[in-house]
């Protein structure tokens, strides 16, 4: 039925195909397999495409398999409690990483720090957040600070100037309000417990980094008058309706609504993190001709200062059979090149590593400027402490919740700070304070 030539051809074709496939499959099987879990969203997919696939193409000995999970934080918690989970563990915050480290669920990383020189690569204060009793358990990721994003077109049209001091900010807010514009568009309807960023910003920028350090080490109490004045100032601004017209919309508007309000010019400013990307609410695609920019949250004396924090961390599961290979992947993921690629392609905040300006070549210059300004200020000692990174867990949770009661008038600023002091003292007594590098 088949001619001899045809049979010969087919045998040859199959042989060639086998010769191509078999070495590849043998090669894949030879590589050590490690797993990492990422959130099943656009960001997780982008990180997989950018970082993980890049590593797999680069490494001759290790292959990282990404499993996208619908809610990785909850899934991971359950898995770890059951003694399972991936080799490489994403942690939602440094305090979570500290808890996992204390519980002996993560591989100590001190040896890898020496092997890969991570102490030279990471910014020292950030690396310290992953330590528990001197042992490093997690690597910090997602450098975060707080700034004020503003509708530049609205500012230019009205002749409003960027404030240098907190007093200037108050005057500016009054001017904006008198013009019939909402000073700040912030809305926390989707996450009332994210409201802690407001008092966190104000106590840092009112008191200054040095005073924050003293409070976080227990040298001065949280009831110190400087913190009370900061909370009173913030509360007055909220009661004046300068934050989205008052508590009604401050408590119910979604993040998206707050962004759109800023982009449309209904509001002038938006106090948020460096993670915010306003592009989608400005410009023609958003239905307006407005432009945006940002300025640092003012301080009392006008000296530029930035709150510092990290939003995530990575560790190695103590049950992993291949911790060395997992560390190899982490080293790759936290290299300057990989971080630059992730930053430019996925709009994912940079890890707190030393990185050249080339990393920002493709980024929006405004976003690049945040990192440059923040880095310079931090190098000069002008940095504060983000509540989500440096407060003990229970104090941080209460900080986010109790401020709502202050804004609603059911708790006084004095009682708010007294409660914070109470929780801080308890955490200090239990040895639960996050590590704080010396200034």
């Amino acid at each position, binding site marked *: 039925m088949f001619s001899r030539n045809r049979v010969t051809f087919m045998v040859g074709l199959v042989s060639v195909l086998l010769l191509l496939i078999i070495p590849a499959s043998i090669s894949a099987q030879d590589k050590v397999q490690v797993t990492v879990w990422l959130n099943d969203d656009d960001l997780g997919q982008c990180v997989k495409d950018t970082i993980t696939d890049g590593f797999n193409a680069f490494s001759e000995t290790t292959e990282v398999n990404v499993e996208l999970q619908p809610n990785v934080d*909850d899934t991971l*918690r359950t898995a*770890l*409690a059951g003694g399972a989970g991936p080799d490489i563990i994403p942690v939602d915050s440094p305090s979570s990483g500290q*808890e*996992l480290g*204390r*519980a*002996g*669920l993560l591989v100590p990383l001190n040896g890898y720090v020496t092997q890969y020189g991570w102490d030279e690569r990471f910014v020292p204060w950030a690396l310290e957040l992953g330590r528990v009793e001197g042992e490093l358990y997690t690597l910090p990721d997602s450098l975060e600070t707080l700034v004020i994003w503003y509708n530049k077109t609205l500012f230019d049209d009205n002749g409003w100037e960027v404030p240098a001091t907190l007093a200037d900010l108050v005057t500016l807010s009054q001017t904006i309000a008198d013009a019939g514009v909402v000073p700040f568009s912030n809305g926390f*309807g989707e*996450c*009332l*417990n994210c409201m802690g960023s407001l008092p966190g910003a104000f106590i840092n920028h009112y008191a200054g980094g040095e005073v924050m350090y003293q409070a976080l080490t227990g040298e001065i109490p949280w009831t110190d008058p400087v913190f009370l004045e900061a909370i009173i100032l913030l509360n007055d601004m909220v009661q004046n309706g300068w934050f989205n017209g008052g*508590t*009604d*919309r*401050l*408590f*119910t*508007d*979604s993040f998206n*609504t707050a962004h759109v309000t800023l982009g449309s010019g209904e509001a002038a400013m938006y106090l948020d993190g460096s993670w915010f990307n306003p592009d989608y609410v400005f410009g023609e695609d958003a239905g307006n001709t407005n432009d945006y920019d940002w300025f640092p949250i003012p301080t009392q004396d006008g000296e530029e200062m930035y709150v510092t924090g990290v939003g995530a961390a990575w560790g190695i599961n103590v049950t992993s059979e291949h911790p060395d290979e997992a560390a190899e992947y982490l080293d790759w993921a936290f290299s300057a090149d990989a971080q630059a690629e992730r930053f430019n392609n996925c709009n994912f905040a940079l890890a707190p590593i030393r990185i050249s300006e080339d990393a920002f070549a493709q980024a929006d210059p405004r976003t690049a400027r945040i990192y440059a300004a923040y880095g310079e200020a931090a190098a000069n000692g002008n940095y504060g402490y983000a509540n989500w990174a440096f407060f003990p*867990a*229970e104090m941080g*949770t209460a900080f986010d*919740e*109790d401020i*709502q*009661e202050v*804004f*609603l008038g*059911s*708790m006084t600023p004095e009682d708010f700070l007294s409660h914070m002091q109470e929780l801080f003292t308890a955490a200090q007594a239990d040895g639960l304070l996050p590590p704080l590098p010396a200034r």
Partner: protein
Amino acid sequence: MTRDVLSSKEGVDTHEVVPFVKDDLPPKVAIPWSRYRFMQKVVIPWAFILPILLLHALVVLLPAIQGVYYSFTEWSGFGAAEFIGLENFRRIFFEDTDYGRALGNNLLWMVFFMTVPFAMALFAASLLSRVKTGGLIYRMLLFLPYVIPSVVVASIWRYLLSPRFGIGAQLSNIGIQGLDVAFLGRTDTALLSIAFADNWHFWGFLMVLFLTAMQAIPTDLYDAAKVDGANRWQEFWNVTLPGIRPTVFFMLMMVMIWSFLVFEYVWLLTQGGPGGSSEVLGVVIFKNAFRRFDAGYAAAQGLTISFFASIIVLLYVYLRKRGWDI
């Protein structure tokens, strides 16, 4: 069911409706216990039930026992737990004001759900039970919210209750003022607004249950009531309600228990805010376990919910044993 309703009616011979008399049963006869019967009566039934029983033990019973254990410990949720006796419970009942506030919110929730959806469901079911044509479409439409996922329902109601975009805002645009209120952003309205959204999702299910129960009521009872000159309300009160009493009481018991388990709508809409005003026990437990890393304490709080649910179930069993027709 029928005897106490009908015995009040003159001329109705209740003996006619009693299906049998106990004395007519044949005497018990001893049957030899053969291997075949042992297989049939013991081995095979247990063989069928054992897999699901093992799964239940693994997924429900064992974690429940672990929960009881952890409630007596200080435990972050990871690693080893330290036994601390009754300290967690002392904290719950003598120290923790958040727990007391949340428990109060759960009781308020319970009162809401024992009244509002029941009234709506009984009213709608009573009307629908008389609809001959198109009744199925009404049932489907009213049941539809129940099959929508809670995340979707919460998103819908977040926007409907928004003072900027919601129903109140739209009414305000056409001149009807006063409703563009931040229902989810005020301490006095947040919890009830969440309950309202959850009720929208839930009451259709209740309506279908009551309607099914109503359809099991013999129609001659309604005929008899009509003959006696009963109006619609009297028919409902004297025939319909007693007829569906077991269903109503069972659902009341379930709603009471479910009221202590409420979590999703509160978490999706307000996370217990603003200022803790809508916080319920489920939210408090979640925050303690996963935000404050105080899982031992959260386990103790969870155990108190089991205690409250047990009281409700025992009350129900007690009333049934006392002869209540529920």
